[in-house]
């Protein structure tokens, strides 16, 4: 199964990556060669195998419900691209 040009444009959009037609073409070739490698997985019968999401079989630890953080807005916003009145500014969001 090979990725089409449309597939590449679709995933680039999903990932919010602008790609030129030329970049999309290169990406298509490279992704298809990588998926050539990945397809080796399909030869394995994995019925009844439990998927492994974590390296170790450990349970989630729970944190006590306590407020431990204090206001660091000024520090955090000195590195922000655009702020005003303590808010992060972005192009108008239309809902």
């Amino acid at each position, binding site marked *: 199964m090979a990725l089409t040009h449309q597939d590449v444009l679709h995933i680039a959009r999903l990932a919010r990556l602008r790609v030129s037609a030329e970049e999309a073409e290169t*990406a298509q070739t490279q992704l298809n060669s990588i998926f050539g490698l*990945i397809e080796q997985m399909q030869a394995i019968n994995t019925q009844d195998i*439990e998927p492994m999401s974590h*390296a170790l079989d450990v349970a989630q630890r729970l944190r006590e419900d306590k407020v431990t953080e204090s206001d*660091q807005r000024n520090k955090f916003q000195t*590195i922000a*691209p655009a702020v005003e009145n303590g808010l992060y500014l972005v192009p108008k969001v239309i809902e």
Partner: protein
Amino acid sequence: MINSSLKALSAMLADKKISAVELAAQYLDRIDALNPRLNAFITVDREKTLAEARTADTRRAAGEDSNMLGIPIAHKDIFCTDGWLTTCGSKMLGNFVAPYDATVISKFKQAGMVSLGKTNMDEFAMGSSNETSYFGAVKNPWDEKAVPGGSSGGSAAAVAARLAPAATGTDTGGSIRQPAALCGISGLKPTYGICSRYGMIAFASSLDQAGPMAPSSEDCALLMNVMAGFDARDSTSLEREKEDYTRDLEKPLAGLKIGLPKEFFAEGLSAEVAQKIDGAIAECKKLGAQMVEVSLPNMGLSVPVYYVLAPAEASSNLSRFDGVRYGHRTAEYRDLLDMYEKTRAEGFGAEVKRRIMIGTYVLSHGYYDAYYLQAQKIRRLIAADFAAAFKQCDVILGPTSPTPAFNAGEKASDPVAMYLSDIYTIAVNLAGLPGMSIPCGFSNDGRPIGVQLIGDLFSEARLLNAAHQYQLNTDWHTRIPEGLK
């Protein structure tokens, strides 16, 4: 001085033969002299470093005598460091001065270690040659035409050239071990969950693990004593009793059962590397270790599995780089979508974009089961292979990398060839196991070759022990490139 072990530096500092400031200044001078050639560091800040050194001297003057106090170390630029530029090798974070310390950084600070700066790396730790860094490729100190390996290539090169006596690295699919091998130093990737991931910029969360890089395994053990340990800020951090990783260093090798997986010695392994690995095996036998053949039947699938799982996690982990709260934002944009797409297209390099696209695709509607879920299932098979192997042996030994360091540019345009250079290291991350690379010789053209030791979960001390015993009887780890002495 420049080739001193951490133990020796510690003694000199304790005996006041040198101050932390003097020691840091020596390394800073060496960085000034050699880094322009090697490009191992992205950020060096003499004032900050010397200030930390002064603090260490003050602490010592006040009576503190912890063994790492005042020892310099270089940090991979993946660790957030309060007040330091922390780029992760990316234009995306080219202006990112971290507002907090990673837990690993805090631990080194608490121990009184002095940061020499932030080392170069493949962008977002995605690469095996350090050629994907936005800040330029790193050169291998043994041969500047060669790559240092990746992604912790800056750390490996810095230690190999003795621009730093030690460095931190991170390893998602071999990123400590492979550059350690290619640069002729020692590097340990601990069991997943041993070192906190808090403040370490995520590549693939279920695989990422921080670890030490230094000339010797003894150095690595001392560094592990500082950097390992439970962190309540990381849900995957393990609550275990504190360990002394140096405790077993002096144990003899006699009786150790070393497993040799036949899959590690099959097609794809260069003759030169095979020969040096055989040499290492012979040395271990001489020291009393026993060799047993084991098998990891699904190891061949580790590369495909990894290139589904790691990009999938990465595609999500890297979504936060959107130009809204920090980092790069494109100069001009029409609307929100335009801002997102241009910011991310400009901020990320080609390899990062490639992996984001792979990850996005394998998680997208209709492909999840065939790729992501299938990869997770095979991951379990790979982990089970190791578990079975460790019923027959104590430690697994094999090559770290199929070849010595390759030339810069050689694989840059062929992602698949590049990905296959991690074929011996990736499975270890998938299984969450500790793995280590130590130098075991040189190629005919003088490039270092590394041997990999893999242990069962939590067997770091045993790996360090085996490595140390080997290093007591060999001198590969003490060698420095001729031109850099």
